[in-house]
């Protein structure tokens, strides 16, 4: 058996991949299965009742707070995705098309640095920037643009969206950049030689060809944002809490892990369903064009 495995390249490949594969299996697939199982159980203070029940899901459907939180979370994630990708696309385009090749990695390095540094403190500093006496308000008042501090930029959903859009910026730029880099530049010349304007060339050649990167960027921003509870906790105020805050509360404060598990399952299914719908629509759109 061992001989057989090590003698072929395919066998050696399987042998090599098995440690990371089994690690992911034991620490990812098994726990994900466990959380689904757990969501059908109930907990009464410290005692876990392992009889199968749909009560947790019933509670989520019946109590309006959970639906409202989920809806708001999906709205925030979708807005963050839209803002992040729209803001990121021109940057990725600039780095790919207008920066000299030897300078490209420097630009990408500069873009990724803030992403790796002290997440918690970065979120907190947005509070300092957007706050009542914050940088933006005192700056705008000093130059006389406003008389009173703006209040719509902190402790609400807008603040959460701004902060998350900042945190996920590199996640959006990198996949778009990679897709743009793969575009054969002679196609753009061909399009212009055939009489298309620069704008039409962008719309009909560059944009469709960069679609794989855009889709990847959308998914890589949309899916993880649903799980963030730090930003809504610090920036959201009372009206800006999201589903992740509720999951955290159920697990750590209310000691109702099964309900928290059910909420996590519902959130995951919603996000996956929306992502799949997005990918399928995109494939159909791209097909319809060709």
């Amino acid at each position, binding site marked *: 058996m061992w001989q057989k495995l090590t003698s072929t*390249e*395919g066998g*050696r*490949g*399987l042998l*090599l*991949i098995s440690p*990371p*594969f089994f*690690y*992911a299996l034991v*620490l*990812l697939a098994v*726990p*994900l299965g*466990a*959380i689904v199982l*757990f969501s059908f159980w109930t907990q009464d203070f410290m005692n*876990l009742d392992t009889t199968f029940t749909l009560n947790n899901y019933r509670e989520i459907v019946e109590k309006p707070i959970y639906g409202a939180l989920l809806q708001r979370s999906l709205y925030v994630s979708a807005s963050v995705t839209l803002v992040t990708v729209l803001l990121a696309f*021109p*940057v990725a385009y*600039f780095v790919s098309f207008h920066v000299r090749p030897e300078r490209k*990695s420097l630009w990408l*390095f*500069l*873009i*990724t*640095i*803030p992403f*790796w*540094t*002290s*997440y*918690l*403190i*970065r979120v*907190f500093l*947005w509070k*300092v*920037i957007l706050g009542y006496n914050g940088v933006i308000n*005192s700056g705008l008042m000093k130059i006389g643009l406003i008389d009173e501090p703006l209040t719509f930029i902190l402790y609400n959903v807008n603040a959460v969206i701004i902060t998350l859009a*900042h945190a996920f*910026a*590199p996640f959006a730029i990198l996949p778009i950049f*990679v897709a743009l880099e793969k575009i054969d530049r002679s196609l753009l010349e061909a399009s212009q030689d055939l009489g298309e304007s620069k704008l039409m060339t962008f719309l009909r050649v560059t944009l469709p060809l960069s679609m794989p990167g855009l889709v990847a960027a959308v998914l*890589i921003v949309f*899916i*993880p*944002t649903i*799980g*963030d*509870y*730090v930003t809504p906790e610090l920036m959201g105020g009372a009206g800006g809490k999201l589903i992740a805050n509720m*999951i*955290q509360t159920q697990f*750590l404060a209310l000691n109702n892990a099964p309900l928290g*598990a059910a909420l*996590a399952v519902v*959130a*995951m299914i919603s996000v996956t369903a929306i992502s799949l719908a997005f990918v399928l629509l995109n494939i159909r759109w791209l097909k319809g064009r060709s």
Partner: protein
Amino acid sequence: MRLRVYAVAYLVFLYAPIALLPIFAFNDATIIAFPLSGFTTDWFSALATNTALHTAVKNSLFIAVMTAILSTLLGMCAARAGAMARFPMKAGIMGFIMLPLVLPEIIVAVSLLVVVVQIMGWGLSNWTIIAAHVLICTPFCIAILNGAFQNLDPSMEEAAMDLGESRFSAFRLVTLPLVAPGIVSSMLIAFTISLDEFIIAFFLSGASPTMPVYIWSMLRFPASLPVVMALGTILVALSIVLLTIAEILRRRGMARAGVKDKGGFL
């Protein structure tokens, strides 16, 4: 030209929060707001005497070092296997290992919490955090190591084996030196991610908190905020140094492997 202005403005937006850190870390006021009142290094000296923080930092360093080593080892297996031609279900297995990259961290946190505490009945410790951090860091390590392992000419190892080396020593003597910069780069990135990770650590830390968990508790007390700013300044400076080294090594690794650098960790 307009695009360049936009790109620079975007960089300013990206760096705005970090740029504020040292300003408030040296500001002689307990309130984190403008106008500034004076220069002080008190907040930095307060860090030196905070023993609870020191314990948290020690925990985090232990977790980050273990995570860096373990996730880079797993990443090396995966990147090496990925660089090899073919094996059954390659794309599926690779995709599955990379999955934590897009999975919401809270899902990873609660699912591990359920397994460890509720189902297995074990206690939480630094090792539960390490286990989770290795899971989320491995995809990043693979992304970096791929650059080093791919396009490595297989005929070099074959030559070593033809000359009588075993498969393992051919790997050790020929491939390992070539990918060494990538390995160090991968360890530095995993170290940085683990040191900074909060969401998972908050769920899975036992009696003694990690540094981000301790920072989280400090954020609730306005009086401790300037100290947090001082700590943040040190952390940002440290991670910029580590990331710069990682980037230089990553590029060197790609150059050794003969790959044209396309830039970016991901």
